[in-house]
């Protein structure tokens, strides 16, 4: 393993712990928005696909990169939109009832 790869492993393990800690704090009420939010965040694979699509390494990489950019964009754009749409619906009882 190169030092860079070791460093990546450190980051992965620490991020997984942070993620687990943060996510245990999410109430069951919001588990669906949590799922769509993490979907949107996992659209971060855009970062990898953008380079593959734009670097012109070879035509196969460009084509695969294009497919990947499309898929990841669907997740990012759609994921954040739908999360916000869901979260907007959660309202507290108005004081004094309605």
């Amino acid at each position, binding site marked *: 393993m190169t030092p860079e790869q070791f460093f990546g492993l450190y980051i992965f393990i620490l991020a997984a712990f942070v993620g687990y800690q943060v996510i245990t*704090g999410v109430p069951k009420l919001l588990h669906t928005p949590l*799922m769509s939010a993490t979907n949107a965040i996992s659209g*971060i694979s855009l*970062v990898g696909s953008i380079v593959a699509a734009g670097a012109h390494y070879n035509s196969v990489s460009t084509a695969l990169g294009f*497919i*990947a950019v499309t898929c990841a964009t669907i997740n990012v754009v759609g*994921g954040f939109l739908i999360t916000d749409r869901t*979260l907007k619906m959660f309202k507290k009882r108005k004081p004094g009832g309605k």
Partner: protein
Amino acid sequence: MIGSLVDLLYIAASVLFILGLKGLSSPETARRGMLLAEIGMLMAIVGTLLHHDIVSYEWIVAGFLLGSVIGVPIAVLIPMTKLPERIALSHAFGGLAAAMVGVSEYYRHGEELGAIKMGAIGFEVMLGALTFTGSMMAFGKLQGVITGVPVTYRFQNVSNISLFAVTIGSVAYLVYDPSRHALFYAMLGLAFLVGLLFVLPIGGADMPVVISLLNSYAGLAASATGFVLSNNVLIIAGALDGASGFFLSIIMSKAMNRSFTNVLFGAFGAIAETAPVSVAQTAGVNEGSLEDAGMLLENARSLIVVPGYGMAVAQAQHAVRELADLVAKHGATVKYAIHPVAGRMPGHMNVLLAEANVPYDQLYDLDAINDDFSATDVALVVGANDVVNPAAKTNPRSPIYGMPVLNVDLARSVIVLKRSMNPGFAGIENDLFVRPNTMMVFGDAKQTLTRIVAELKK
């Protein structure tokens, strides 16, 4: 110079993602949190566009446009009852994107790859591919294109596990000798197949666990991409997603009192499916009319509504709220009891009721409300079945014995809205339906509720 700017943007993005998820710990801070995550995503994308390898932008922009053209309408137009389908699809896209990046990296570097990088690519492609087909299968089952009933055949588990072992073995061999191109593509094909075959035997009622697991896999695949490209923001975001999916799967499995292995290999309900409702059982059913149900509700001092997947199917959440509001107007206390696995994904019922303008402080979790049933006049069960089955508490021979259920049977009276006497998705008989204090009202939940509302308004 640009390199460190990109790195700074990535660090900021990672922090914003974590803060964004932290915001989800309360409905009041959730939207602000998501805004932070969105800003983080934007920063990561801008940073990537500055990457020195990029020579032209036409395919990138084309992908952005096509992705938005597909993604935006789905997100804006999809009805809330179809959210599980949309989530399954997005796992599929996430998996496919990761797999494609992995294949592209392998195609470029092939035999020059070191062992660790090859391992990461193999892992990424395998997970991405099986997440893709597995999620498409889950989507098909949720949509009803593919039967929601578990599909089983002889030696299914043995053949599935062997297939998976061969796939992992291929990855291992590629780490040893990355120059075997044919083996790499065979592994890709196998992984696609494994995804399909693993989800095939899983029944509709187990979908919350499967969807959570696939969520986790999609995240791990993204993380593996980060190892391949030595990109830390990918590693971090993927790890967050993976941890979240893993945590949700644990909660869902616990709520069904089953282990991962049991969900994945148990083909739940396959045997009980054929067992018909016995004549003796149907004979004991106390069928009520709309007037009877209306009368009970009119005189109730307290009401607990228990929604299930049937409410989503009938799109009855608005009718439920209307009825509950009316009962509340008569002076009764109204609460909603949400079982963690009611519906087809974590939090499904909460979202539907929120959509129908039910304030979220009326929604109670299983543990928070289970002691209240014995002091409640009426429990109204709308399209829920297994999650209210008392056999889980009393009958050690029941397939769901030990699963935590809502104590609906302890309420003074129970009204069950159900389409017919057919057993639920898991095919298990429910003796709640034949108890003396239970009144069954058959028919489409939405129509029944609307008619009861009309009855109460008289």
